[in-house]
């Protein structure tokens, strides 16, 4: 393009506009002040503004409402009205037209859909389902050697479910997943389509998606329970809503990221809008679409498992009930199938994405991806034209037919053998041996290890020396000081609007009457984030500098990043018993892979020219790291902090199930006792806390527009 797109006219600098009020002396003073201010960095200039504001507001607030914990005068008790509301819903669920003609249909349809899929899986029997899973994986993997690997993973996953005696719950989870993912992907795709094609929709959706991604999974459950009651409809809808954002986001990203040259070429040939979408935009976005599907599936799995708390049933339910009696063996027996299913689904969709996304470039092994290929060049069968482009089609057809035939054959074989469910003789109950090991650990590892102490000792030390003081400091601090602190941090990270939003969100928790519980949760989050960042950045640096460390870590991180949050609770309960330390350990373990990965990538992507320049000046490895790599990786490190905080919060809340207490416990309590008032207030507070933490740690790119 030879034209420069006109940029917006520079907004007038507020400091230069208008003549100063007052006489020449004040004008001089103002000018000096302005000169001083203009030398300062924008962030500190804004902080000065905040300090000035605080000097006026804080004394007033302190005099009016005191300087202790959140003043009762500023609270609003909403649990009463909420209880009334939920009672009204329970009473009117069968009579009100809103329910009869709308919500009831949704509820019934979702129950029917899940039942239908479950019955289909039941009809297929274990042979049919396994064959279907394995063959589809093989097909998705490109039917070559890569396909075989994916197929092996699928086989392992199903065999694992069966061997551990979890076939039935696994099928129920799978049925829920299939329905949830189908709806979620469709909704997400349609929204993404709208956002990709319309700027207005994009602008409207983006903040909603941003916020949704920050919220812990637990916060999604309560509103659906309120409306639908516990059971699979609520679980299903919560899953659909929770899992849709990545599909929406990636669809929009793919559509927007399409090569403008291609779109222009398409328009220049006279393509209509629909033709352009069908022939250019969507095919160009295939990779993003599949990545979106992958993410949606992984998030749906995570949520389906967590939704056992509201009666989703399946594998999550097994883990949930086992955890509530601290039966680690049973929890592990259900947890391992979850892990296996997660890995299977992730690898299958990832393989499909790679197959579709990568053009058959010269560098790729072609034969792997196109197995039924009659030689390096197409055969010249009569009309070359007829033959053109058919090779691919034939491959696809052949492998699809093979897949279908295989499934049918397995199904028939299974029916003939009369094996509907996994044969009991082939199951192996691991809960006994695992519990024996657990008992041994309680006796030998939890405490009494010479010199080291023991895991339970560490946990209690961590609780009493780190968590308790942190919590006490937070809860003892004057309420306005915390608001001020949050506003200041948000101001450093963003704009006045972020600061105001963050402070308002924190204040909202006070208004809701859960100030001290929120601070308790916050103290856990802070403790976990500190641990995560120290460990994550250290491991990240190590992985960036030592290649074998990175090679070893990569598959481990791959698996860890696909696991649902729920699964992390099992080993930490085994190691640390129940309590806040256990919840925090799970949170650290959950957030660590992302932090390590972002840090490593950030460090490795620093400008090689800058690094080379430093090396040519004779910088030592440490100097290179400190003076070049870390400063240049700053955006990545900030992103790692943000991601770490969001992920940690999600698990700290789920940790309410294993003695984490505070807000997470309130949600669990509200759900299990049917006391929705308490649960919803805690849920709202979680949302607020999530917003505060996200706003305070906004990574740099989000505030580009601010001058």
């Amino acid at each position, binding site marked *: 393009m030879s034209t420069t797109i006109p940029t917006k006219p520079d907004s007038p600098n507020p400091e230069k506009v208008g003549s100063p009020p007052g006489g020449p002396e004040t004008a001089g003073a103002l000018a000096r002040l302005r000169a001083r201010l203009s030398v300062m960095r924008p962030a500190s200039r804004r902080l000065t503004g905040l300090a000035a504001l605080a000097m006026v507001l804080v004394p007033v607030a302190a005099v009016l409402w005191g300087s202790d914990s959140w003043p009762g005068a500023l609270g609003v008790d909403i649990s009463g009205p909420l209880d009334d509301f939920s009672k009204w819903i329970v009473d009117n669920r069968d009579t009100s037209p809103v329910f009869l003609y709308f919500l009831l249909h949704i509820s019934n349809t979702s129950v029917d859909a899940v039942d239908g899929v479950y019955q289909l899986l039941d009809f297929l029997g274990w042979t049919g389902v396994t064959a279907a899973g394995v063959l589809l994986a093989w097909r998705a993997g490109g039917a070559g050697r890569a396909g075989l690997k994916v197929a092996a993973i699928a086989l392992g996953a199903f065999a694992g479910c069966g061997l551990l005696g979890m076939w039935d719950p696994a099928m129920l989870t799978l049925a829920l997943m299939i329905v949830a993912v189908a709806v979620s992907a469709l909704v997400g795709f349609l929204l993404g389509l709208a956002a990709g094609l319309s700027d207005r929709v994009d602008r409207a959706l983006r903040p909603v998606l941003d916020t949704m991604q920050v919220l812990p999974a637990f916060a999604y459950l309560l509103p659906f329970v309120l409306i639908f009651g516990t059971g699979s409809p609520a679980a299903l809808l919560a899953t659909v809503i929770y899992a849709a954002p990545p599909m929406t986001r990636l669809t929009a990203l793919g559509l927007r990221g399409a090569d403008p040259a291609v779109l222009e070429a398409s328009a220049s*040939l006279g393509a209509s809008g629909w033709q352009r979408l069908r022939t250019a935009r969507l095919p160009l976005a*295939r990779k993003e679409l599949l990545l979106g599907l992958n993410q949606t599936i992984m998030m749906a799995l995570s949520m389906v498992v967590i939704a056992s708390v509201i009666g989703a049933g399946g594998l999550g339910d097994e883990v949930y009930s086992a955890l509530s009696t601290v039966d680690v063996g049973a929890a592990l027996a259900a947890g391992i199938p979850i892990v296996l299913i997660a890995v299977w689904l992730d690898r299958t969709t990832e393989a499909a994405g790679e197959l579709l996304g990568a053009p*058959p470039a010269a560098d790729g092994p072609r034969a792997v991806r196109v197995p039924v290929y009659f030689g390096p060049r197409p055969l010249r069968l009569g009309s070359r034209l007829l033959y053109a482009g058919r090779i691919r089609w034939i491959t696809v057809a052949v492998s699809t037919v093979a897949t279908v035939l295989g499934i049918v054959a397995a199904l028939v074989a299974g029916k003939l053998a009369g094996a509907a469910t996994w044969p009991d003789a082939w199951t192996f109950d691991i809960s006994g041996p695992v519990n024996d090991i657990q008992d041994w650990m309680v006796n030998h590892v939890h405490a009494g290890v010479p010199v080291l102490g023991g895991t339970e000792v560490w946990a209690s030390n961590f609780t009493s020396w780190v968590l308790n003081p942190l919590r006490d400091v937070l809860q003892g601090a004057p309420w306005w000081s915390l608001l001020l602190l949050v506003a200041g941090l948000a101001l450093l990270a963003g704009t006045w609007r972020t600061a105001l939003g963050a402070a308002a969100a924190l204040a909202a928790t006070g208004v809701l009457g859960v100030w001290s519980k929120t601070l308790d949760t916050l103290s856990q989050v802070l403790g976990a984030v500190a641990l995560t960042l120290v460990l994550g950045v250290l491991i990240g640096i190590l992985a960036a500098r030592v290649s074998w460390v990175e090679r070893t870590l990569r598959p481990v991180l791959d698996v860890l990043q696909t696991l649902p949050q729920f699964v992390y609770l099992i080993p930490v309960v085994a190691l640390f018993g129940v309590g806040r330390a256990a919840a925090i350990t799970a949170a650290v373990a959950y957030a660590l892979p992302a932090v390590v990965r972002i840090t490593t990538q950030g460090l490795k992507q620093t400008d090689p020219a800058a690094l080379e320049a430093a090396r040519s000046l004779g910088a030592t490895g440490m100097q290179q790291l400190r003076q070049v790599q870390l400063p240049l990786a700053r955006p990545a490190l900030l992103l790692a902090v943000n991601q770490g905080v969001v992920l940690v919060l999600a698990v700290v809340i789920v940790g309410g199930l294993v003695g984490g207490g505070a807000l997470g416990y309130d949600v669990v309590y509200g759900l299990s006792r049917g006391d929705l008032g308490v649960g919803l207030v805690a849920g709202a507070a979680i949302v607020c806390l999530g917003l505060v933490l996200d706003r305070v740690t906004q990574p740099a790119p989000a505030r580009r527009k601010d001058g």
Partner: protein
Amino acid sequence: MSTSMTKEETVQDTASVFSVRNLWKVFGPKAERIPNGELAELPADELRRRTGCTVAVRDVSFDVRQGEVFVVMGLSGSGKSTLVRCLTRLIEPTSGVLEIDGEDVLAMDKARLRELRRHRAAMVFQHFGLLPHRSVLDNVAYGLEIQGVDRLERRAQAMKVIAKVGLEGMEHRRPTQLSGGQQQRVGLARALAVDPEVLLFDEPFSALDPLIRRDMQEEVIRLHREEGRTMIFITHDLNEALRLGDRIALMRDGAIVQCGSPEEIVAAPADDYVRDFVRDVPREQVITARTAMRPARDGEAGVGPEVTPLSTVATAIEAVARDGAPARVMDDGKLLGIVDHEALLAVVAGLDTASPKAGAAA
């Protein structure tokens, strides 16, 4: 090229394909108030500061005639790419008159405009704009697919065009497996496949390395010679413009500074900007004997070597040097004038530009 001298004579005979009058394109808020107003006279920065607008195409008028290669040339930012996109309304012009075969383009509704893009004008892009997920064959057939031509027919048609641009045997490859030059051949084939009335080229060879670029230029010259299709060619490369163009429009800051044959541009630059531009052009290879000649004096009619009016000064120098006598410029046995040592040397030395002969603008 064949038609470079016939400009004055053919203006009347040959119909214009594109006729552009007072075309403006202004980017920015409330752009329609800028054209022809006093705001338009402001310098670019001043205008942007006061209105937030940028003038990309400024009051441009020209005609593209049937069968000619019309080159729009200018440095980056001169508005040439915007101009060519205005022709099929890929970018909507702000004001002006734009006709194709006498039909008002700006008045076309969506369907009519699509018809124009599908059948009458096809474009070749600097960055190719190929669909990476399709084979070469399906990329070339893409325009026909959009027109709704059925699969077999469009593939048959595409195969013919692929052969024409020399990509035989590569029809099943993906664009990513081709070199830059080959990819642009696919882009060219895609445009040719719809058999358009006009071919639009937007800096098609800028992204290619010099040797490939020369190949591709020759390809375009060959295609033009074989098919005589009207072409509008955008480039920032003066040599490319001189090689390909029957006529060249030189753009600067959105306006056309000079429009004429390569010879006119080189022999009679309209202003210092153009003069600066053409300074390093080997003049003897562009300027023709007809421009360099002087009237014949007595006794010169029967002696000396003969050259045609269209032969370049370089050819005339060779003839004069071989014979040692001034050469006669002959057209159909008629003596038009004489080129002698002084006249030819004046061309090489660049002394003749002081007295511009040809008109500046078309």
